[in-house]
């Protein structure tokens, strides 16, 4: 168990709802859910969630900490915002889902082989490097994120897509070697570091 996880369990002994309120983006909204189920019904990938949003909120209230944080459910969110516009209580569900995913990741509880988790981490690391996304390296890393053998298979499968994009001048193989990105790279790193610091301090107080 990560030290962060141990600390959280200690601090919020038996009150997962309070823990979510203090640590998850927009987590204070979770208690306002009235269990109508419109979110679950509106989600385009709804059937793929082990626990759709309505159920996740209920599980949080019921203190099912481990099941929620180790679940791959919230990683199914495509950010389509259907739930947000239809929720009669106005819960910012998309953000709560992302927040839960991020929190689970921070505690080291997110399922390691969850593909969207891997991709999301790749994406962030990629953009933070230069301040802008290097689409080509992102694509290659995506192919190989499940290991070398898988990577070769995926690359072959998607070869025609890749070639098509290169032909259409919408993918730059040269980016593998050199990618400009932002001039203010260092500034961006400082900003992000500071933001991280402030956020950590906040959650330790709650």
């Amino acid at each position, binding site marked *: 168990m990560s030290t962060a996880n141990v600390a959280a369990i200690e601090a919020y002994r038996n009150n997962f709802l309070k823990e979510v309120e203090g640590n998850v983006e927009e987590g204070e909204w979770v208690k306002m859910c009235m269990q109508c189920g419109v979110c679950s019904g509106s989600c385009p990938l709804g059937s793929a969630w082990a626990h759709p949003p309505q159920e996740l909120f209920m599980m949080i209230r019921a203190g099912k900490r481990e099941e929620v944080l180790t679940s791959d459910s919230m990683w199914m969110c*495509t950010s*389509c*915002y*259907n739930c947000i516009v239809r929720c009669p209580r106005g819960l910012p569900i998309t953000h709560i889902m992302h927040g839960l995913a*991020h929190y689970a990741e921070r505690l080291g509880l997110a399922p390691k082989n969850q593909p969207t988790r891997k991709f999301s*981490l790749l*994406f962030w690391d990629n953009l933070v490097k230069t301040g802008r996304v290097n689409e080509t390296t992102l694509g290659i890393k995506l192919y190989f994120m499940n290991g070398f053998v898988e990577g070769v298979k995926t690359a072959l499968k998607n070869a025609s897509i890749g070639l098509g994009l290169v032909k*259409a001048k*919408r993918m730059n193989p040269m980016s593998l070697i050199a990618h400009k990105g932002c001039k203010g790279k260092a*500034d961006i790193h400082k900003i992000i570091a500071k933001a991280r610091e402030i956020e950590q301090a906040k959650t330790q107080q709650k």
Partner: protein
Amino acid sequence: MAKKEYSFYPGCSSEKMGSASNYMTSVNAMCDELDIKLNEIPDWNCCGASIGYAGGGELPRLALNARNLALSEQHNPNQDVVATCAACWLSARETRERLQEDSQLMKETNLALAEAGLNYKAEQPVRHMVEVLIEDFGYEALGEKVKKPLEGLKIAGYVGCQTNRPFGIDGESFENPMYLDKLVETLGAEPLTSYEKKVQCCGGALAFSEPEKSQAMIKDIVESAYDQGADMIVTPCPVCQLNTEVYQDQINKTYGTKFNMPVVYYSALMTVAYGQDAKAAGLDGQVIKARKLEAIAGK
């Protein structure tokens, strides 16, 4: 028409040789026709899109977007921030509204920005290019410039998720927004009358991580247009364009369909309708060629 100026946020995919570089090409041609000057925000950074959350978290993401907006305030003062990418627009606008509502978050964000000597005041609105077209110009004015009406084309207006929800364009309904259809009509083509998959999610970033699930949805989107006799699909979002275009071969293999449906940007349609050639409209960037559109452009 008097020249209109905007502070411009292109986004990562619109970069030269990026996955939506063809979008940028037609946007430039379109702005040329409409006498719009786009002042690119200097040294803009990635918005984080909707997939950066695992590594990002709340405040870092807000700070990233705030940097762009602060740079805009600094270098393009008093200009509306306009984005052509749906995710960039959504992230930037959400950031602005969140910081306006929550003064504590605003304080914290500016603390982070201070590390780079920046400060964000949240004064200028953040808009999508289609909003600018509809609100600042209007369908009538847009129609006036049409030299080659797109006659004989039946075009499915695929609005998708993020230009539609949660903000919506021009006050239209979330469940059945009509703005792409109205635009298509303005340009002289025929929109679909009941395109049920008009606001169906394409999977977004999950097209990369969960291809099967995403392609099942994409199949429905293309099939619905195909069944109603559409010649092509038009879209305002780079990831929608990519997702609905490049996986059609794989979908055909999986489902036995015979899709070969071109997916173009609204700016490409406009560029052609305004009389420019296929290259200016970025049509050579199509993986599935939009032959019928090219024909009109070549006339």
